[in-house]
């Protein structure tokens, strides 16, 4: 199977994630879109691991590390969102302009 199939699918997921990050107002939905982008990267890692079979399984190992890092990232990201919600009663990223000049 051509490797470009997987690469184009991953590029599609990444761009959809970019759209979500830029266009969504709810901070939790922005985090969901970031998950889409991390998954696109993972598909690339696994696809190249299958493509370069003689190079070993390093790609799959790094996909595992990306999944673990995504877990930590979501945990801390949601904690920040919850704190903002408690202080401002809103998770709207457009209203988070406290540190804007």
């Amino acid at each position: 199977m051509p490797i470009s199939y997987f690469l184009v699918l991953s590029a599609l997921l990444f761009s959809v994630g970019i759209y979500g990050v830029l266009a969504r107002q709810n901070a939790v939905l922005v985090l969901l879109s970031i998950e889409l982008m991390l998954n696109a990267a993972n598909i690339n890692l696994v696809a190249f691991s299958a493509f370069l079979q003689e190079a070993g399984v390093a790609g799959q190992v790094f996909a595992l590390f990306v999944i673990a890092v995504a877990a930590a990232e979501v945990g801390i990201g949601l904690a920040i969102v919850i704190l903002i919600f408690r202080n401002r009663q809103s998770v709207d990223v457009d209203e988070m302009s406290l540190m804007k000049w």
Partner: protein
Amino acid sequence: MARSYFSQYLTIGLFLVVSVGLVMGTLQLARLLRPNVPSYEKYTTYESGIDPIGQGWAQTNVRYYIFALLFVVFDVEAVFLFPWAIVFERLGTQALIEMVIFIAILALALLYAVKKKVLDWL
């Protein structure tokens, strides 16, 4: 029985298709056969006979978030335990020391949560 990788997953895929199809099919069949007489009472949420008050979307306590996060942390730990258990015999002491360090650091996280009293029952 040594069957190839894809034919084994083909069996799982077939099971998946048949089981999902069975549930969907019977539900659709029931939809065709049953009488359909909607009324307001039928669409209200069932709360053991009491009329529902307020909305179904209630805010949960923020303390439960810590429990969910602890679950995620130890889920990730479990993921690394599987490949470790397989190669443990071959790598021996080296793998043991690595995993002990890993678990000790995560045990620190649990210890911190206990010390900060976020795990106490309300």
